[in-house]
């Protein structure tokens, strides 16, 4: 397994898909944050973004940063208008019952394993 996709993460970490992205992107890393200005400045193409924000604005931030997907943590779920906008724009929104810290740790571990396979 060379590439890690959102579906891989969803399967391994029991994430729930609320919307799917237009094209399935490789997940290359992650960023965690709830201040949108910080995420806009620092999240990168191909990362998954972990946040507790559920508001519609997360879709715009995801488009701007070109992240592979947004994962809402801590058992929160996206608002209906967020789901609607994300579906229109083809932005993947997922959710997890894990906290940002725990989920981030799990994703980090999966990325490290993938890297070991690629380089080993």
């Amino acid at each position, binding site marked *: 397994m060379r590439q890690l996709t959102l579906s891989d993460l969803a399967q391994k970490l029991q994430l729930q898909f609320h919307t799917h992205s237009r094209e399935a992107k490789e997940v290359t890393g992650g960023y965690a944050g*709830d*201040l*949108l*200005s910080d995420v*806009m400045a620092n999240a990168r193409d191909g990362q998954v973004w972990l946040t*507790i*924000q*559920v*508001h519609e*604005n997360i879709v*715009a931030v995801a*488009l*701007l940063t070109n992240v592979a997907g947004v994962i809402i943590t801590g058992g929160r779920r996206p608002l209906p208008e967020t789901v609607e906008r994300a579906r229109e724009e083809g932005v993947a929104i997922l959710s997890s019952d894990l906290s940002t810290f725990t989920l981030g740790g799990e994703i980090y571990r999966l990325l490290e394993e993938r890297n070991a396979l690629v380089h080993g």
Partner: protein
Amino acid sequence: MRWFTADLHVHTDLSPCAKSMSPDQVVRAAESAGVDVIAICDHNSAANVAAVQAAAAQVVVLPGLEVNTREEVHLVCLFDHLEGALALQEMVYRELPGENDEGIFGPQWLYNEAGDRIGLERKFLAGSCRLSMQAVIALVNRLGGLVIAPHPMRTYGGIIGVLGFIPKDLQLGAIEAPPSGWPHHSPLGEIPGVIASDAHRTEEIGPHMAFYMERVGLEEMKYAWRGLEGRRTHPKFLMVKEALGR
């Protein structure tokens, strides 16, 4: 003295998230809903206030802007005169990075006093400025304005949602009551409550609260909140007090 109905938090098409909110549409919606006073507060800008004032026939338009602080807390900043709002806008613009991407955030329409669209604001009005809450409040107070903390419980832009509490030394003029009332431990203290629409669509504008006062003005409103000199607020305000359990 008489009753003035008010909606102290209304956007226009300058806010990228607002729709069909030209000055004319805003004024007509307010006047047909029986609102005597509206406060125009677009995100980080007061650039359409003059156009709404020019469009107004009966409704009194208070100038304002909804500043997004560095903590990502929204603060509705109101003034008696346009000059105050524009002075604050100038300071906010200086500390507001980035350019708007219309395709992602939406267009930011500017209007002239004749009601025509004259162009698009380029600044990234949906973003947060580099000024702290304390700095914004100090600037507004120095300019003779009033600060209201809107949608306090929201984790995006709400003072309690973002910070978890209201810092003790913060000189807030008032705080919007969430529609669902307050959680058990109210953070409100002695800060007066406001019920306002945060309208991004015309149908949301309405007479959400009322002030009994001599004339429209921030000083009069402050008296009304405190029940001084015969001024008072509409019973709807009492719902805020009831929700507080006192």
